[in-house]
């Protein structure tokens, strides 16, 4: 062993601190879902509230229940995949993201299906102006929070982790807009779901900037945590 490696190891050992919850992604996921969910509901209520009769339609429309459950599952699975992708392991990214993307695809497919088998005629009731931008803006704090948690782990492929975080964060307002904006599957696909793709793409770029760690300089004893 070289002398410099020996020094490095001594420095690392000297800076050792106990780790309370090693490898934990479930707790951050639960916190994020609770926080982002509460924030999403609050911001919707603060900016116009629910469409009249929207929540009651959950009791009468089985399709809407399935659609909502798919949305919730997509959000949770995307967020979980974002966090898991920041923990080194042998699982391929394709495998990690196949289920979340499949559920997200099924959710979008339900909207597509709605173009032919609607739960009722499209209605302008509850229409929000600029709902695309609202969805995108509503998603930003949740995105920042999830990105912060992801960054605290060890994202070895930050673009992918951040893209998943962006998709998860934007999927939440997309789900809430089903009850807060006008009912029309085409409108939902065009204006509520597209922020998911937009924030995933933006997230990949932001992730590159925010999470690509510069090479650290040689550590000294006591300088690391």
């Amino acid at each position, binding site marked *: 062993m070289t002398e410099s490696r020996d020094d490095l190891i001594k420095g690392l*050992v000297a800076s*050792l*601190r*106990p*780790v309370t919850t090693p*490898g934990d992604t479930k707790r951050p996921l639960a916190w994020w879902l609770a926080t982002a969910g509460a924030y999403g509901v609050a911001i919707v209520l603060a900016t116009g509230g629910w469409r009249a009769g929207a929540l009651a339609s959950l009791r009468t429309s089985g399709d809407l229940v399935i659609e909502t459950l798919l949305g919730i599952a997509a959000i949770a699975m995307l967020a979980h995949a974002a966090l898991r992708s920041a*923990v080194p392991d042998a699982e391929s990214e394709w495998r990690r993201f196949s289920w979340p993307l499949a559920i997200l695809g099924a959710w979008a497919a339900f909207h597509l299906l709605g173009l032919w088998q609607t739960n009722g005629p499209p209605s302008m009731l509850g229409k929000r102006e600029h709902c695309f931008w609202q969805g995108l803006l509503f998603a930003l704090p949740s995105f920042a929070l999830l990105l912060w948690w992801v960054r605290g782990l*060890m994202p070895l492929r930050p673009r992918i982790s951040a893209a998943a975080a962006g998709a998860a964060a934007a999927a939440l307002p997309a789900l809430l807009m089903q009850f807060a904006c006008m009912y029309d599957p085409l409108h939902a696909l065009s204006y509520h779901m597209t922020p998911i793709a937009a924030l995933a793409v933006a997230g990949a770029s932001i992730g590159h900037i925010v999470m690509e760690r510069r090479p*650290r300089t040689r550590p000294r004893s006591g300088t*690391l945590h």
Partner: protein
Amino acid sequence: MTDRDRDEARWSRDMAAAHRGDAHAYESLLRELGGVIERYVRQRFGARPFLEDCVQECLLAIHTGRHTYDPARPFRPWFFTIVRNKTVDFLRRSVAAPGTGTTSDDAAQRGVGDPAEEIAAGELLGQLSPPHRDALELTKLAGYSTAEAAERLGISQSALRARVSRALRATADLLRKERSDR
């Protein structure tokens, strides 16, 4: 129980102890892993001047990311994913950073021999296509500047940079395709 199983159990146990703040177990683990990383990189890229820097960078990454290791999961996939990733990062950064290249004279002074002989020393490099292998070998491993390497290969500098980029992608793919728990 095989040596491999014993290593796995010991590394996992030592890292779990390190999570609790056991400095002795952590030091023992880092020293052992340092040797494992050194063998891993040498086997794939040959005995290179950058070997020690690469090993230390991997150890540093393991230290900063130790909180992501879950003792309930196998240690090897976690460990080798970090090592693979940091090794490729190390190569990529060295190529991408302008002005880090040295002249062929410098390379010769450092004891870097004929590129063909050095290639033979690393089994992974042998799996790359000849254009990728030459590009990677000359620019990073043998320490030639981009201009020198491009001239030597008879291609433009931009073509060389593109070739190096593809070679690094191919290297990362090859490392990922290896058994995940090596």
